[in-house]
Structure formats: C-alpha cells, structure tokens
C-alpha cells in the first residue's frame, strides 16, 4: 500500500511539474517580442535549491539574440549566465537585478553554455524556462 501511494505521489508531482512548466513557458514568451523569432524549442527543467540547468547552443555571427529566463509568475526568480567555450563568463543576469531578458549582439559565431538557477532568496524550487529568440 505504502509503495503504491509513494508511486502515485511521484507521478502526481511529476505531472504538476510538467503543468507548471507549460504555464510558465507562456508567461516567459511575452519577453520575446514581435521583432524576434523563437528558435522553436522549449528549454526547461525542474530545479530544487541550488541545482543548475545548463545547455550549449550556437549563437551565429551577425545576429542579435534575445534570451528570456523565467521561473514562477514573477520576473527575477531565475538567474541566467552565459559562458564561452573556454568557460569565460560573458554575462550574468545577477549584475542586472536578475533581469528576465537581455539582448546579445554576436560578432562571430560562438558555442556558448547557458546556465540557469533559482535565486534562492526568492524561490527554493520551481520550473526554469529559457527561451531563445533571434532578430529578423
């Protein structure tokens, strides 16, 4: 009995997480304004405490990108950072009051790593959503 309840609880918490991510993606999309085209992908992860979600992406030279990062219904719950291939920190939203979006003008094509983690002073767990758009 205990096992079935535990299984059920895990299944439900997973479903709640998925649902939460879906809702947040819509909220985060408002930062990708009409001048930008999304890359058609949904980057998200459920984070607890100090967990960090990261992914690599290619930013092509000659383009302007907008990166939006959200968690919860308020702006500023999620911190995002961008590193180059040599692990040099190129940008941290912490320096700009956890800004939910920022624009990046790319001179030459780069492979970067985007990291996202919760600002634990505002949130201890939640769904992290990152959206990438580029200017037409």
């Amino acid at each position: 009995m205990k096992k079935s309840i535990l299984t059920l609880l895990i299944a439900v918490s997973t479903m709640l997480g998925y649902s939460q991510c879906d809702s947040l993606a819509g909220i985060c999309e408002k930062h990708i304004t009409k001048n930008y085209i999304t890359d058609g992908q949904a980057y998200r992860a459920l984070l607890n405490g100090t967990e960090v979600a990261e992914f690599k992406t290619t930013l092509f030279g000659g383009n302007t990108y907008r990166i939006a990062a959200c968690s919860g219904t308020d702006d500023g719950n999620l911190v995002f950072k961008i590193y180059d291939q040599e692990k040099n920190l190129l940008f941290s939203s912490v320096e700009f009051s956890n800004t939910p979006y920022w624009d990046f003008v790319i001179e030459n094509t780069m492979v970067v790593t985007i990291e996202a983690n919760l600002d634990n002073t505002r949130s201890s767990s939640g769904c992290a959503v990152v959206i990438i758009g580029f200017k037409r």
Partner: protein
Amino acid sequence: MKLRPAFIGTWIVLIALLFTQYGCEQPTNSNTKAPLLDSNSVSSAGTIKLDGQIISIPSPTQLAILVEQSKVPFRKELMHDLAKREKYLSEQKKALNLGVYGADLAYIANYQQGQIANDYFDAVGKSAGDLEILDHIDGKLVSRISNNISERDSVLRLSAQFFQAADRYLKSNERADLAGLVLLGGWVESLHLAMDAGAVNDDVRNRIGEQKHACESLSELLNKFTDPSMSDLQKQLNELKAIYTNFTPKYVYGKPITDAKEKTTYFTSKSTVMLSVEDLAKVKVKIEAIRQIITQ
C-alpha cells in the same frame, strides 16, 4: 475489495491537487513566487538531457534567411514531396518529416511563395495532427498562420511559435524522443536547402561549417535510440559528425561590451570556420544520404 479511509483520503487530496493545477488559470498576483515542489520530484521536466545537458539546435529559419539573402533562386524541386506525408506510418518517420516540412516552410516563406507556403503549412498541420500534437496547439495560432501565409515575417515568427508549442507538448508528454526527431528532420532539411547557396556564397558555406555543435548533439541524441529502424540514420549521422570534426573553429576570447541602458551585450570574441568547396562537397554527400533515409 475494501479501501481504507486513509487511502481514500490520499486519493481525494491528489485528485483535488490535479484539479487545482489544471483547472485554474495562472495567478496574476505580482507577489506570487515560484510554486514549491516536492523535494523528491524529478530534476528535469521532459527535457532531452545528454550527459546532464539539454540540447539546442539552430532554427532552420536562420539558415533559410541567409540562403535567401545570398540571392540564389528559389527551387521548388529541392523541397520534400508533399504526397509522401501520408506514407509515413511510424511515429519516428512522422516526427522526422514534420521537421522536414517545417524547414521547407521557412525556406518558402523567405522567398515569399504564398500559395506554396499554404500547401506546406497544410502538410505541417497534418503531420502535427498525425502525431496528435495539433489538438494541443492554440487554434488561434494556427488561424493566424493561415490568415498571414503570404506575409513573410508573420509566417516565420508564427510558425516558430507553432514548433515551439509542439516541442513543449511533446516534452511534457514524455515524447522528448519525438521532439528530438523533429529537430533532426528540420536541421537536415535546412542544410539540404542551403547547399546550392553554399556552392556560390562564402557566408552560407561557412555557416554550414558552423553546424559542428548541432551535428554532435544530434548524433549523441540519435545514438540513444535502440530501435533497429534507426540504425542507418545513426550510422550516417555519426559519419557526418566525423567529417565535422575537421571543422573545429579557431576561437579567441574578446571581452564583452554591455550597454545596460539598452539591455544589450555585444559578444566580441573572434571565431572562424573556413569551409572549402571540397569540404562542402563532403558534407553535402552525407546530408543527402541522411535526407534520403528520412524522407524515403
């Protein structure tokens, strides 16, 4: 069979939780913080994780824009046959070709071919329907694409939103494998459509050379499939990855410049990949082989 009151109570609480989550609109209170989750919940929600990382593949639209700017003429015959759509039976093939038709749509939209765009958006919609995605995408978005099919910028922006919604739906429903195949199909088709321009335009050719990271990610993703029907595709993509290993860019770090007022940072690092015509030919042979497997 009798159920204990405690067990029934647990069910009532869980069902109530589900109704709370799915039945209510997102709160708009600006003071609301991120909802708490069970500390034992999964650390990743429907994302494709490769060695702890989520994958990201360049949008086919970006390459399509560069192709159009290179002034090579539009060639309808390069695109995938619409009649083939109905012949795909497996979910994998349907997903791969949803990506293919999506990349074709981006190519068409850039050349402002209104009627053809309509036909290909129809194929995209039907492919999404075949995968039971369409019912879960906002009908207003679909209508807006249909109503603006001749408007290049609208089609590019709205169709990207369509694919993002599809990606989100698949990942939310434990079908992240199919989401990955949609990306693969779109990526391969976008390179196929760029080969003409790559032969005559240095910018397009070098952009094809800058796909190394995308190729590696897709190769790793595909290698996780255990279905024997994917083995040919795995082999070809691994061979393409080996070709791309020769195109490692030279990178020199440059300190970023930030304009906080404009919320803009300029990345000034230098990086170059120079693809020769001979290199392009090698990539082309492999891309065409992969596309043949996907679309056959």
